[in-house]
């Protein structure tokens, strides 16, 4: 096989997610009454990028064969914090942005410390930390409110000349500046190694604890970016438990749809991005086909169920039943 053949096989999941998204989005745009206009694309992009950022956060942790059930709450917490800090003069705004991102990082640090050095199972530990983050969000915003620097918000949620949504550019910058360098770095490779086989990674001298810790930290940072972006979209902060839980669950859906293995070690945050965008588009498709919006949650659920069943086709190829019971 030629080299590019190998590279394509390596990125199978991501490419599939990309194709699915493109097809769905094409159907959406073709059937949208307004057509392929900049506004339609920008609105879709803004919502999609929101979930994409949280999905990226979830991806990094899932790659280590862990799970982070607190991403939604970090998202909500940073949203509330941003609605208080990211205001005022450009300098104050910049400081606010830095503070919000740093808070997300701290949340990741907390998760990392508990899971790795406390040796607690991620699923339960992150449930608990999620409650803590939510509580802190409530302290900041007992009722929805707040504000955000409108110049910055407008700039990042509208369009650039040429009709390209600014949010997509932001996403691209995050991918280029954060994800790709991370993936190519030694610690990023370590994350994949740990997720693939923690024992083999240890035997090979990979710093297991540090790799996992880095994953949780990066996850907190990315979720904070999502929270920040939510503030730019809604101009307010709201400590909504429902919202937080929804984003946590949807991030897992996006991760799965994006071809990232829940067992760890394979997949890419880029795939999760397309998974998130595809997931978002499902709801929009319903609107476009004039289906009663009442049916949207059901439709989304059935699509999700069907998508996760697809992976079971590999079972037909199994020749030794012991492999079923890994």
């Amino acid at each position, binding site marked *: 096989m030629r080299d590019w053949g190998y590279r394509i096989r390596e990125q199978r999941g991501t490419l599939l997610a990309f194709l699915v998204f493109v097809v769905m989005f094409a159907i959406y745009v073709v059937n949208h009454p307004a057509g392929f206009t900049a506004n339609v694309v920008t609105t879709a992009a803004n919502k999609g990028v929101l979930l994409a950022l949280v999905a990226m956060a979830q991806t990094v942790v899932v790659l280590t064969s862990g*799970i982070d059930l607190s991403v939604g709450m970090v998202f909500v917490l940073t949203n509330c914090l941003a609605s208080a800090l990211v205001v005022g003069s450009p300098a104050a705004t910049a400081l606010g942005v830095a503070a919000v991102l740093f808070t997300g990082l701290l949340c990741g640090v907390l998760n990392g410390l*508990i899971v790795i050095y*406390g*040796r*607690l*199972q991620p*699923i*339960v*530990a992150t*449930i*608990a*930390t*999620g*409650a*803590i983050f*939510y*509580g*802190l*969000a*409530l*302290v900041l915003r*007992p009722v929805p409110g707040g504000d955000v620097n409108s110049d910055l918000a407008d700039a990042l949620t509208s369009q650039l000349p040429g009709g390209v949504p600014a949010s997509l550019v932001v996403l691209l910058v995050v991918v280029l500046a954060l994800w790709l360098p991370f993936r190519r770095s030694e610690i990023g490779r370590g994350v994949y190694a740990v997720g693939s086989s*923690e*024992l083999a990674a*240890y035997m090979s001298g990979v710093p*297991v604890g540090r790799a996992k810790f880095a994953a949780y930290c990066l996850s907190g940072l990315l979720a904070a970016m999502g929270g920040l972006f939510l503030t730019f979209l809604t101009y307010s902060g709201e400590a909504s*438990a*429902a919202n937080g*839980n929804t984003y946590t*669950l949807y991030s*897992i*859906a996006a991760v*799965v749809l994006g071809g990232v293995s*829940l*067992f760890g070690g394979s997949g890419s945050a880029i795939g999760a991005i397309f998974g998130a965008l595809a997931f978002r588009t499902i709801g929009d498709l319903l609107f476009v086909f004039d289906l009663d919006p*009442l*049916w*949207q*949650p*059901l*439709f*989304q*659920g*059935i699509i*999700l*169920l069907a998508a*996760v*069943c697809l*992976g*079971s086709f590999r*079972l037909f190829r199994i020749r030794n*039943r*012991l492999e*079923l*019971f*890994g």
Partner: protein
Amino acid sequence: MTTRGGTLIRRIEPAVVMAFGCIIGLLFLGSLYSTSFVSPEFLLQQLKVASFLGVIATGMMIVILLGQIDLSVPWVVAVGGMMSTAVASWGTIGGVMAIPFGILCGVALGLVNGLGVAYLRIPSMIVTLAVNAVAQGLMVVHTGGYSPQDASSAAMRALATGTTLGVPNALLVWSVIGTAAVLLLSRTTFGRAVYGIGNSERAVYLSGVKSQRIVMLAFALSGGLSAFGGILLAGYASKAAQGMGDAYLLPSIAAVVLGGTSILGGRGTYLGTVAGVILITLLQSILSVMQIEEAGRQVIYGVVIIAMLLLYGRERPVR
């Protein structure tokens, strides 16, 4: 020299002792705040409230013992509540069929979970998530997005709010279910297989036991119990409500884990789950009575769970 007796008594795990210790500790701290904390009325009230969580946590425990998880609890609970109240309004037949129908709906959803996990080998986290979404979708369509106005049947209300000889019916219901769970887990082939699968499904399969069937049945059971919890909740409030099950997912998982059941499966006793349920309920009650803001309650809830897990929930280092 083989030991008899069920999982209740065979070996009191240190985790269970810890959990009960924490309960006593909480009561003590509460009593410093106000003596009504240790009054029998308050304690009985707590047990009654705990019963709802207890029923749901029973199903969750069985699934966790298998080494799996059931994230469909929120909307299966809602399905139980909404479907039973919907049927309850169909005249006298409705009144009788309300509860069985609600449970049946839960069992059906649980079977879908079970099929996905056992036969399609999809990780339980995803399947139950998807089924949760589907259940939510179904209920949104059913209710039109509004709060359902159907009333609960008399039987539902009696079960949830009535008393028999001074003991709240809900508590009696939990006791019955709990006893059945203990017997199931400790005295039946099903129960033994559940523990086995949690330890090594491979070994169970090679022992000639039909492990896949057992996993499917366990999820069906969990679905039925979640739905029954929803029925009780609907009976308590006289009707169902959107999102009525949301507040029960994380506490049910936490209760099971705090009770000493390993999240990886294969280890745990029902007594521990009982302790975990009471502990969580007590914690939430005390925080609310102390009139601590919701914000503070959430933070303390999270911190306490982590602290207790650090005490006895730690895994062994990978070496």
